[in-house]
């Protein structure tokens, strides 16, 4: 019974009707990201609420290898293609998401 169920669903996951562009769009721009919240405040008063997104990946995929950064900065500026993942340290590279306001405590 279980085996039959699997047979029923397997072709559905196989039978994708999509172009390479679709696959690239999904694989490169979607997928799990780590999100978090941050509240900036002064003197115990919450002022600004920020929603953060962090992509877990090698630092030099996002920031570029520090030893090569200066040398390749010009060439990267000329060639704005996607940076390929290279050897790297393990960090959480964070980027700011869309800021959202939060009610201020009084």
């Amino acid at each position: 019974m279980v085996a039959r169920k699997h047979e029923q669903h397997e072709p559905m996951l196989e039978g994708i009707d999509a172009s390479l562009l679709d696959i690239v769009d999904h694989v490169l721009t979607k997928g799990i990201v780590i999100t978090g919240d941050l509240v900036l405040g002064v003197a115990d008063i919450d002022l600004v609420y920020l929603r953060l997104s962090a992509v877990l990946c090698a630092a030099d995929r996002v920031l570029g290898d520090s030893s090569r950064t200066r040398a390749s900065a010009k060439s990267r500026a000329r060639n704005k293609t996607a940076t390929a993942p290279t050897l790297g340290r393990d960090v959480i590279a964070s980027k700011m998401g869309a800021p959202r306001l939060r009610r201020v405590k009084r």
Partner: protein
Amino acid sequence: MTARARARARARFYVFAIVDRRVDGLGRGMKSELTSIRVGPHAYAVGERFAEDAELPKPTPAVVLKHDRLIRRIMRAAGGSSAALLPARFGMVASDAALKKTLGQLDLKAAFERVRGCVQYTIRVHGKRTKKKKKKKHPPLAAEGPGATWLRDRQAATALPEIEALATATAVLVREASIDVRTTATTPPLLAVVFHLVEQSKARAWRSAVAKSTQLLPKTVSVSVTGPWPPYAFAEATP
């Protein structure tokens, strides 16, 4: 620490997906040597281990296709119709320790339940925006601040009345929907990309509903549907 343990600690783990159960034997018949590591009480990262000095995959068309194919394979191995799988974005790589530490802090249980047993369909909406009647500003409600009013107006502006027929027809079959509003210079222009999270048991009914409802769409609008996808657009985990 033995030399082998040191090499393992220095190795990097390239993640394809995070699943709620251990999946083994995925490397059979493929060049990839997929393995899974435990990153939480009921969470496993499935991926490929790379030596410290090995070259990581570059985003070429062949590698991207393989990435998607492997995620589908993992999804089938993780239970198919009952699978809870969070696809990782291309390029997610870390040491085992970093993965365990970071993913261990996330509420993966909620993230798994959100996508369990579901696949994603992607609907690209092309065409012209239907002409809006005179811009109607919502009067602010009594208990509403200016920010809430602005958000409500913005929500109305980004809604897609052009595919209302499709949205209505599929409403009961969709667990969750999200819209990316995009504009491109293509002809006809891309209005938006809509993602539907659909339970696998309802997928056939969903496809049928979409096929019928597309005939009711305005002539200025066309839609293209792709899928089923692993739930790429719904893979999120919060601390």
